[in-house]
């Protein structure tokens, strides 16, 4: 049981919302990973749907490359759509 793989757990809290990462569990296979995720993360009605995925299968960006990956976006505020004049007649935007 010590060599059980790790699984990342995603919970959809309500219909219409997207699944969110909530944590991880150990389990010998996918089916039991769902059961462990259910018993660990949805005991208090936190969710209506569960995803689990092998942690090893997740491809992540390299933290050492965070500069080149994310810094170039810092000085490009014009990418936010906040520079448009909105006519007063248009509400709820």
């Amino acid at each position, binding site marked *: 049981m010590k060599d059980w793989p790790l699984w990342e757990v995603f919970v959809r809290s309500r219909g219409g919302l997207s699944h969110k990462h909530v944590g991880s569990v*150990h389990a010998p296979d996918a089916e039991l990973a769902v059961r462990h995720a259910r018993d*660990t993360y949805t005991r208090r009605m936190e969710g209506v749907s569960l995803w689990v995925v092998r942690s090893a299968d997740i491809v992540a960006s390299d933290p050492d490359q965070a500069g080149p990956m994310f810094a170039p976006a810092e000085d490009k505020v014009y990418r936010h759509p906040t520079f448009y004049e909105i006519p007063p007649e248009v509400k709820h935007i």
Partner: protein
Amino acid sequence: MPSLPTIQPEDVATAGRASHEGVFDAPALDEHRDAIADYALRLGDDALILGQRLTEWCGHAPQLEIDLSLANLGLDLIGQATLLLGLAGELEGNGRDADALAFHRDVLAFRNCLMVEQPNGDFARTIARQFLFSAYQAALYEALQHSASPRLAEIAAKAVKEVRYHADLAADWVIRLGDGSEESRQRMIDGLDWHWRFVEELFQMDAVEQALADAGIGVDKATLRPDFDATVERVLTEATLPLPVYPRAVLGGRKGHHSEHLGHLLAVMQFLPRTYPDAVW
């Protein structure tokens, strides 16, 4: 105009029950009141004792995730016990609530079946017990949802969803341990072998249960057996395990004839509320 007769206290009591249980079936339920109390006690004790057993794993399971999942099953069962023992105490009418029945009865007064009081053993033996008992309990609650007693039907309808999950989870583990390593397979076989002799008692009927079954309040448990046998066969076959050869049955739990194990369990469970009667949490 002649005046109406004075309303008697017992009329008020009957009317009070009728509002909850329905006007038309109240007389039949009244007639079976003691039997229903006894029946609720049996079902409640099964859930209570197995729930207590499962909580013994808390902090000791081979993995944190299993710790949580066994504690979860235990809590579901203790929740069911609270409802069933509450009903038993109410129908008994001696002012005992679920806590009084759980913590202030001695071993001979417990009506649970022998399977649920069996010691946990290793993980495989715990799973064997859970698999067999949950398969039976799920079938029972499934049928009990249609009880003529609305209270029993409501409790069964709530509990059956929990118990179906217990049965599935335990079956998953039987398959994994049975069809796993040489050691897990042997442990699963040993765990099941410990429990076969207690299966017969699950389906045992006596005068109380037969009368309730005839009145549409209880369940004729013989009708549940084919489903149970089919589940056992399906899961054991998938687990590549040998099918059961049932040894001579051990009976007596429903009459209070328990194994030595129940007393030890009660000593732990009842110690605190008996030693510190005023303790609250």
